[in-house]
C-alpha cells in the first residue's frame, strides 16, 4: 500500500506541475510511463485493482496510450545485456517469490505483463510489438499519432521522467 501511495503522490506532483500546465499551454506532453504502470504493478503486488483505478481518478486521461509489448524473455535478455544486476523492486524481490533475482523477475514481470493485457481492452491501449526494429516501431508510432494532430500547428514536446 505504501509503495502504491508513494508513487501516486509522486505522480500527483508531476501531474500538477509538469503535465497540466503544458497541456493548458497547448503543448504535447510525452509521458514515459503513466498510471497504467501503477495499475499493472500495484495489482501484481496484491493491491485491489478497482482501488488503484479510483486512487488515480484525479489523473488526466491521455489522448493516446502506446503500449510497447515484449515477451518476458526478450525483456530479461535486454536488461541483462545492459546491466549486471536487476533492481530489487523491478524484480519484485519484495514479494519473496524467489531468492534468485532472475527467477523473481521472470515471475513478477510475467504477472505484470498479464495485468497489462487486461488494461489493453479496458483502457484502449494501442499495442506495439516491441520485438520489431526501432525503425519499424517508430513508423507505427508516427502512423498512430499523425491523425490525432492538427497539421500545421507548431509542436513542442516535453519529456517526462519515468515513474
Amino acid at each position, binding site marked *: 500500500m505504501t509503495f502504491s501511495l508513494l508513487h501516486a503522490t509522486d505522480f*500527483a506532483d508531476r501531474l500538477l506541475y509538469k503535465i497540466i500546465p503544458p497541456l493548458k499551454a497547448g503543448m504535447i506532453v510525452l509521458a514515459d510511463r503513466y498510471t497504467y504502470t501503477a495499475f499493472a504493478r500495484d495489482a501484481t503486488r*496484491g493491491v485491489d485493482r478497482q482501488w488503484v483505478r*479510483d486512487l488515480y481518478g484525479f489523473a488526466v486521461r491521455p489522448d493516446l496510450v502506446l503500449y510497447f509489448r515484449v515477451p518476458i524473455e526478450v525483456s530479461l535478455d535486454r536488461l541483462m545485456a545492459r546491466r549486471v544486476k536487476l533492481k530489487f523492486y523491478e524484480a519484485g524481490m519484495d514479494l519473496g517469490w524467489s531468492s534468485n533475482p532472475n527467477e523473481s523477475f521472470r515471475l513478477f514481470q510475467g504477472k505484470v505483463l498479464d495485468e497489462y493485457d487486461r488494461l489493453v481492452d479496458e483502457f484502449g491501449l494501442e499495442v506495439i510489438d516491441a520485438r520489431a526494429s526501432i525503425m519499424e516501431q517508430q513508423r507505427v508510432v508516427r502512423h498512430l499519432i499523425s491523425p490525432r494532430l492538427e497539421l500545421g500547428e507548431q509542436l513542442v514536446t516535453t519529456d517526462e521522467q519515468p515513474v
Partner: protein
Amino acid sequence: MSSPSDDALEGANGGIQAGRYYGRGIPYLNIGEYPGKLIAVEGTDGVGRSTQIQLLREWLEVKGYGVVETGWTRSPLMQPTIELAKSSNTLNKLTFVLLYATDFADRLEKEIIPALKAGFIVLSDRYIFSALARAGVRGVDRQWLRTLYGFAIAPHLVFYLKVDVSTLIRRVLAARGMDFWESGMDLKHGDDIYDSFRTYQNKLLREYASMADEFHFRNLDARRSIDNIQEELRRQVASFLEPVEQLKPAEPVAVR
C-alpha cells in the same frame, strides 16, 4: 476526480462494520477475526486529545489491557518526508492528502493491524477523519477521499472531542499560539492569522460535524473539565469492553 464505480465507504447507508475494512481494504492482508480493539480519539487541534489518551491508557493498563498508541504522521517511513514537505511551499492539496494516506497506510500495516491481531487495544490519536476533514475543507472530492481511505479499518469506537471555535482560539493561544497550517494560511483567507484561523477552524468543525453520523462518532463536550471528560470516556470504553459484566445485573433470571 472520477466518481468511484461502487460504494467504497458504505457509511452513508449505515453499512460500516466496526473492526472491518471500510471499503475494498488490503486484499493481501486478510484481517479475519482478531482479539484487539481499535479506539480513535478525534478532534481538531487543542481540544485535549493527547491528555485524554494518556489518562485512558494509564487506566486501561491498570485494568490489565495491553495498549498501543498511534498518531497522525508518526510513521517512521513518512514523518521526515511530511515535515520536509510542509516546510517547503511545494505541497498542493492532492500531494498533501496522498502523503498523509501513505503515512496512515504504513502505520496501519506495520503497527495497527499487528497490534490488533496480538490482542492489544490500539488508541489512535486522530484517525482518518482528520484527513477527510482537512482535505474536504480544501476542496478535494469527498467521495474520492472516502474511496481512497477504503483500505482503513473502521474503529470499534470513535470519540469526537467537540468544541466551539471561540473556546478553541483561547486554548490554542494560551497553549502555544497559532501556526501556519492549523490556521489554514495555505488557503489564502487573508494575511491576518487570527481571522484565517477562525475561518479555517470553523470550516473544519463543520466538516467534522457532517461526518458524525456517517462514521458513528460519539461526541464528547471538550469544554468540560479534563476529569469530567475522562470519566465519560472510561464509562463508555468500559461498557464496550466488558459488555458481559455490564449485562449481568440487568439480566433477569428466566422463570418458568
